[in-house]
């Protein structure tokens, strides 16, 4: 009881302190500096109309590279922590007929919609990470509905590695053509497509396709590792 009261007191002090700090930052006021530059120049400089994905992939591409690395390390870490000699699915109850049939019908649509999200990252809300998470949801559905389902490991892990390597490769091509890593060579030197159509946005759709595939396979791998249990022989 004493501990709880102490914690509540401490939290109220921290809350008052944070609220005091935020009182100097009025809500809903225009205080963009760099943001206005991005909004003004995003169409000519990147060919994308979605400013958020342009910032994420193009202006601040290193952040995304680091983010992909963090996710890759997490997926490898989960695999390393939960590694055992013999791992199997131990679920005993198959989903009901409604669930299994519904899953069979839904999975292609969910994967199609996930691909739609990451291919149209430069035009609509979304991008590689939401699209990849949607694709992983399809595999989660399969894991939940069927007792024996497993993702095809060999293909999945290779696809993940190849997608990550291709991202770095796209950056290195930019280094060769434009002089710095992650230079947008497709838009800056070739100007393919008109702004606002699918064939535009420079290398944003290319990189988001790679990220979407990578994130989808990675999250499916994490689900696979967590759902299996060690079986003694």
């Amino acid at each position, binding site marked *: 009881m004493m501990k709880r009261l102490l914690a509540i007191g401490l*939290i109220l002090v921290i*809350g008052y302190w944070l609220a005091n700090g935020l009182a100097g930052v009025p809500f*809903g006021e225009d205080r963009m500096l760099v943001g206005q530059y991005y909004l*003004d120049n995003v169409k000519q400089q990147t060919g994308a109309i979605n400013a*958020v994905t342009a910032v994420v992939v193009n202006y601040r591409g290193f952040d995304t590279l680091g983010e992909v690395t963090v996710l890759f390390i997490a997926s490898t870490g989960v695999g390393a*922590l939960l590694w055992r000699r013999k791992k199997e699915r131990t679920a005993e109850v198959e989903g009901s007929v409604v669930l299994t049939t519904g899953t069979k019908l839904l999975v292609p649509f969910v994967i199609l919609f996930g691909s739609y999200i990451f291919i149209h990252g430069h035009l609509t809300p979304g991008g590689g990470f939401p699209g990849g998470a949607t694709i992983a949801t399809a595999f989660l559905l399969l894991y939940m509905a069927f007792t024996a389902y497993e993702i095809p490991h060999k293909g999945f892990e290779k696809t993940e590695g190849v997608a990550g390597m291709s991202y770095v490769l796209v950056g290195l091509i930019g280094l060769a053509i434009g002089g710095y890593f992650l230079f947008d060579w497709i838009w800056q030197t070739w100007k393919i497509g008109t702004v606002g159509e699918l064939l535009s946005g420079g290398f944003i759709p290319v990189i988001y396709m790679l990220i979407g595939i990578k*994130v989808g396979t990675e999250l499916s791998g994490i689900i696979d590792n*967590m759902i299996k249990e060690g079986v003694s022989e």
Partner: protein
Amino acid sequence: MISAYYFGAISLVLIGLYAVLVKKNLLKILVGLSIMETGVNLLLISIGYVSGRSAPILSEGIGPNQAVDPIPQALVLTAIVIGVATTAMALSAAILIYEKYGTLNVEEIRRLRG
């Protein structure tokens, strides 16, 4: 008077902090960490809001002067993914701890180690 969004974001961070400080079940502590993360993301997004403006997707009718700040949204996109990654790592550590010690109570785990 502080805005409702700031208030909500700070409250989420504080609720998460309370769970981390007081709760003894490891999974509840992880839930607290996730709540804290949500609060931080909400705070970042609400700092970027400009009243009366629309999402920063410059399609028909939305020019550069009718969109909100895109930078906090890009930052939060990164932060969400990192939060998911750390949560996945922490959950697999929790699975291992339960298999090794047979309990998720942090005080009992501390006693078993000593």
